[in-house]
């Protein structure tokens, strides 16, 4: 059972990282990037190609940072900036469109098979009571914890973090204080995209590179968002790991077909019973 839990947590770490990306752009720009998971998956395929060319892991990381930053900039300019001040749904459609474009581009180069992504660390499985765990799983969980906690501390303790959050709450006040809202939203958006692409060499060895992951991870990321609470980085971390573990446990206890339905069930129940999630804030309706 221990091996299963670790495996589940590793997948949960991937979901958590996606949700952290969602939360970062939400907190600093009130926008959720549906294409966040697309960055990770595209990064996985890029990593496979790079490794195939014989590039070192360091070079691969560098390429992913550059590519992620570039694509995120393009997405911001094309799909987000023109929508400043419009209703909520607008960026849902445009980022969904961008996510679809990413899927289409991937499909130009590969079919619907899954590709093995080499891990830059040790690949030898470790024997533990109850099964075997892969080193990449441990690294994934560790990285998710570091990133989640780090982001949370940045957003709540550092000046730049608080400024970034503040400007999305009250734009005018931020302007008065000399903070430039547009620039902060843009920078954090790009950082979020880079976070997505840079997690590829870590997540890929666990999930394998597959186009179907773009939608799947995007949705699971939303489930984490609901469970952890929109806007809570800690919630993204805890929620993600929790969902991963629940998935692993459900698969072992019930019929295979119920795996996704169980996660869906958690999603709906959370939304109906505790809409603000575990760590979210209660909002009083106001006029």
């Amino acid at each position: 059972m221990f091996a299963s839990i670790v495996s589940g947590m590793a997948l949960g770490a991937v979901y958590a990282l996606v949700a952290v990306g969602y939360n970062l752009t939400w907190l600093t720009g009130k926008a959720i990037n549906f294409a966040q998971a697309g960055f990770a998956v595209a990064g996985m395929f890029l990593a496979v190609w790079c490794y195939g060319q014989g590039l070192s892991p360091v070079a691969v990381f560098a390429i992913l940072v550059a590519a992620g930053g570039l694509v995120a900039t393009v997405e911001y300019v094309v799909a987000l900036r023109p929508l400043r001040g419009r209703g909520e749904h607008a960026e849902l459609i445009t980022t969904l469109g961008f996510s679809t474009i990413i899927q289409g581009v991937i499909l130009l180069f590969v079919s619907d098979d899954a590709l093995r992504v080499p891990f830059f660390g040790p690949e030898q499985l470790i024997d533990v009571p109850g099964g075997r765990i892969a080193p990449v799983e441990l690294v994934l969980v560790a990285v998710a914890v570091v990133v989640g906690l780090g982001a949370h501390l940045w957003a709540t303790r550092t000046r730049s973090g608080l400024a970034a959050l503040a400007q999305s709450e009250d734009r005018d006040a931020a302007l008065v204080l000399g903070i430039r809202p547009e620039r902060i939203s843009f920078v954090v958006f790009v950082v979020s995209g880079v976070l997505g692409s840079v997690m590829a060499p870590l997540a890929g060895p666990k999930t394998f590179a597959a186009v179907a992951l773009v939608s799947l991870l995007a949705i699971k990321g939303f489930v984490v968002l609901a469970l952890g609470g929109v806007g809570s980085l800690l919630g993204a971390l805890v929620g993600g790991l929790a969902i991963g573990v629940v998935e692993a446990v459900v698969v072992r206890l019930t019929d295979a077909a119920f795996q996704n339905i169980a996660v869906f069930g958690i999603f709906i129940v959370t939304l109906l019973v505790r809409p603000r999630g575990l760590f979210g804030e209660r909002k009083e309706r106001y006029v």
Partner: protein
Amino acid sequence: MKSSRILRRAVLPAVAAVVLSALTACGGVGASSDDSGPYRILDVGPQTGFSGANGKALDAGLRAAVDDLNRGGGLNGRQVEVVTKDDQTDPTKAVTLLREELSGRDQPDLVVTGVSSNESLAMAPLLTREKIIGMSNISSPKLDDREQFPYFFSTAIQQRDLMAAAARFLGTQGGPKRVALVVQDDALRQAVEPVFTEQMAVAGHTTSVHPFAPDSLDIAPAFEAAKAAGADWIYVDAVGAAVPRVFEGRLKAGAETIPAIGGSGIGTTAFTDNSTPAQRAGFHPALYPLTAYIAPEKRSPELTTLFERVGGNSGPLPMPISIYAYGWDTVRIWAAGVRQAGSADAEAVTKALENLRVSKQEGGWLMWSRLYGPNTHFPQPGPDDVIFKQVTGRQDTMFVTAG
């Protein structure tokens, strides 16, 4: 002013309808089969999208065989032409495209119904009504229904025959076994599980079934369950993205010590590219004709021709040669029927195919030795047509067997 606004709003759909009608008035109605022009083969299948590579390979094999045929003087003195339509593996699109072709002036004499049973099941009823031969390399027993689909023939064996071969193979491994089935829980499971239970029982083995969700990212639990059920052998089948995850899960669960058989789904993927030797320990994929490596000097003239025509000699092929071979076989088999019947009429060709007087070598097809009879429109594997052997890698898209 009010009425003009209404006129504008309501006239739009009316005008659209009239314009559409006018455009299509040019398209003729009425089907007729030409008696002296070329034979027509219509290939409705995916050329783009998810299974696009599959469909393209099948089409290439089809055209290679047609080229060969035409060069040799044609069929019954007439040339053969191929028309390809892209349905992107969507059964609805397939039917729409088929209807379009059927409403044109030239009726096809043979329709190749895609690469999936969904496409075939969608198109087959229409082909029955229009009395046109349909062929595809699908293995769904639902199409083995000579009442509903009297003019449909498959170029691939059914799961039942594969499973019988597997059960026999296990019988040679020393006594009855406890066999576990690890399969993805979708159409593949529906196709494999019933015949698995049936055929293994016939051969005296005991069985257990352990499905996994098709998009599951961790398949180790299914293997753990198989281990827990005390399996001596595991029969594994999966398609697409699940394949590499199956191998990973097998190793993670510590099930690589249990020898395994791979089903038809795994056998048609390049799984050696996406798995490690440790993960493949003790793994015996089902090897159909042309999936196990045949050295160039041992290849039949037809196989050599096929390789050359589809570009296998100038670079690595994107799909296994067996897929191209299915396309090739479709034409060769159908041509044998047309030759024997003297016409492309569906009833006559069906009769001919059910009582084919030429052998595989004479007819020039590549895969299966035994074909159709009055009771089945699916090929039957010969005793050595399906083997189970460990493989070490690929060459010329075929698996290199170990030892």
